[in-house]
């Protein structure tokens, strides 16, 4: 079986060998290009590496979380329902951390979403080329500021500001409001640029159709363009929300160190990320319940952000289909 092609190619070679050996004649013989193959394999390994790393992280998270949940002291019921988180003394309810995470994120979104959206609308519909040329780089600079700087900004500027406005007795030095507002500033460029892309993707023809019916600019923008971009814009919001939930440095510096179940944004409360920073930075021994707990929390965090990103992707894919 295997020798058939060999025989035929042998005959073929014999018959045409003279022409084929001469590289300057028009030959269709397959050339061997080892470097092409080499580069293809290298690129494939790079792609593979990113998958392996992702899988590795998930495996470690799940494995270490398993160690945590398998501990006889920990029950799933307590983990998801109790409002006390003090692993040292056997309280394993993660709600205080989750609550603080959502408090800072929601505060962040309530600042970042409206301003980010208005910036996006302004940039894509109103700004002249000159204004855009100034505003866009400023947004990029804002996006490039390290989050530790934002953390200091929260602690040394936002907190004193809040204490000045709302009375220092009511506002604790570490509080979720300050951290949340600063995260809002931090996600603002993300929201602005992504929402601008979504708005810019609305076909020009729709704007023209609206204007041709005698609509004003305001009517065109808010009743035609924004609704047409709404799925892209909501995908942006979800992504920004996921970014706010995962933000670490700002909350570690400004929100407070110590789990505390409170709805008062002026009190200190530790977020999931804040807790993980404190434990992994401290001198906790391996295999202690504290140490294992951060993996369980990491897994929860991962699931939340993964779900948000996933939904966001699905929404923006649907958005793309609408205009194809």
């Amino acid at each position, binding site marked *: 079986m295997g020798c058939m092609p060999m025989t035929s190619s042998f005959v073929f070679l014999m018959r045409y060998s003279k022409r084929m050996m001469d590289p300057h004649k028009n030959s269709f013989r397959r050339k061997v290009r080892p470097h092409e193959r080499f580069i293809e394999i290298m690129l494939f390994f790079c792609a593979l590496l990113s998958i392996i790393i992702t899988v590795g992280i998930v495996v470690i998270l799940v494995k270490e979380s398993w160690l945590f949940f398998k501990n006889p002291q920990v029950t799933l019921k307590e983990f998801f329902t109790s409002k006390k988180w003090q692993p040292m003394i056997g309280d394993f309810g993660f709600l205080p951390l989750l609550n603080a995470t959502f408090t800072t994120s929601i505060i962040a979104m309530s600042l970042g979403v409206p301003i980010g959206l208005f910036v996006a609308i302004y940039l894509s519909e109103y700004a002249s080329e000159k204004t855009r040329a100034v505003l866009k780089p400023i947004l990029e600079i804002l996006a490039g500021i390290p989050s530790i700087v934002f953390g200091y900004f929260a602690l040394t500027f936002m907190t004193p500001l809040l204490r000045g406005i709302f009375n220092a007795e009511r506002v604790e030095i570490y509080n979720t409001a300050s951290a949340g507002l600063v995260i809002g500033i931090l996600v603002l460029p993300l929201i602005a640029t992504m929402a601008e892309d979504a708005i810019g993707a609305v*076909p020009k*023809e*729709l*704007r*023209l*159709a*609206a*204007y*041709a*019916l*005698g*609509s*004003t600019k305001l*009517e065109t923008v808010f*009743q*035609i363009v924004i*609704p*047409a971009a709404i799925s892209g814009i909501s995908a942006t919001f979800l992504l920004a929300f996921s970014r706010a939930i995962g933000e670490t440095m700002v909350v570690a510096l400004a929100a407070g160190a110590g789990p505390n179940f409170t709805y008062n944004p002026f009190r200190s409360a530790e977020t999931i990320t804040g807790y993980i920073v404190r434990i992994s930075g401290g001198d906790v021994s391996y295999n202690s319940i504290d140490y294992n707990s951060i993996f369980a929390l990491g897994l929860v965090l991962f699931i939340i952000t993964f779900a948000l990103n996933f939904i966001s992707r699905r929404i923006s894919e649907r958005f793309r289909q*609408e205009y194809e």
Partner: protein
Amino acid sequence: MSVKAYEVNMPFVGAKSAENPIIEMKDVDIYYGDFQAVKKISMEILERHITAFIGPSGCGKSTVLRSINRMNDLIPNARLEGYVLFNGYDLYDERVDPVLIRRRIGMVFQKPNPFPKSIYENIAWGARINGYKGDMDELVQTSLQSAALWDEVKDKLKKGALQLSGGQQQRLCIARALAVFPEIILMDEPASALDPIATGRIEELILDLKTKYTIIIVTHNMGQASRLSDYTAFFMVDENRTGYLEEFGDTEQVFLNPRNKKTEEYISGKFG
């Protein structure tokens, strides 16, 4: 507003009768920045007639069309010199609000561009922003009937407009334009993105609409221009890529007995 004063510079005004022109153009030059897109356009458009704009690509016929409802205002650096008169009023007077002009001079575009809303909302939106206070259901129905679309969509008014076929979408766009009660409808190659059957239906519709509306249609299709229009404006382009009006007159005369060699060559398909 005296019409006579302009007559001297008119290339040709067909069937000049007691009818008053609804649109008069007088020495219109349009510029995009430093580039002059068209020069010295003068013509009269008569009410309740169909006027076709024909000519090779880049001759400025769409530019002239869009100057009539001031859609060119939306293009940065676009500038117009000369006069465009609507019922004798200067559309480019600085006190004129382009938004209000567009409510009386509607437009249908080359590619069907319904809003990503329901069929019903596509019609109702324009009427609503124009302050329509009457029975909206009725307006939607009559507009769709006028656009010969009602029978096909009456059971799915709440469905998305993007589900319709290309030809249906274009008739929806015409219905949408009718719902704001315009006097003039500008059509920029309204059938060029459609198949022959859908094109045929749009053409029938345009002929129907002539009884109530003044229609100006840009087309690349010579057959369409000769089938539909009463008057034809033939545009050409000079060596600076600036468009100008080569010939204007009765469609029959322009097609059968063109006064101009360029017109004859274009219509017989020698270039374009």
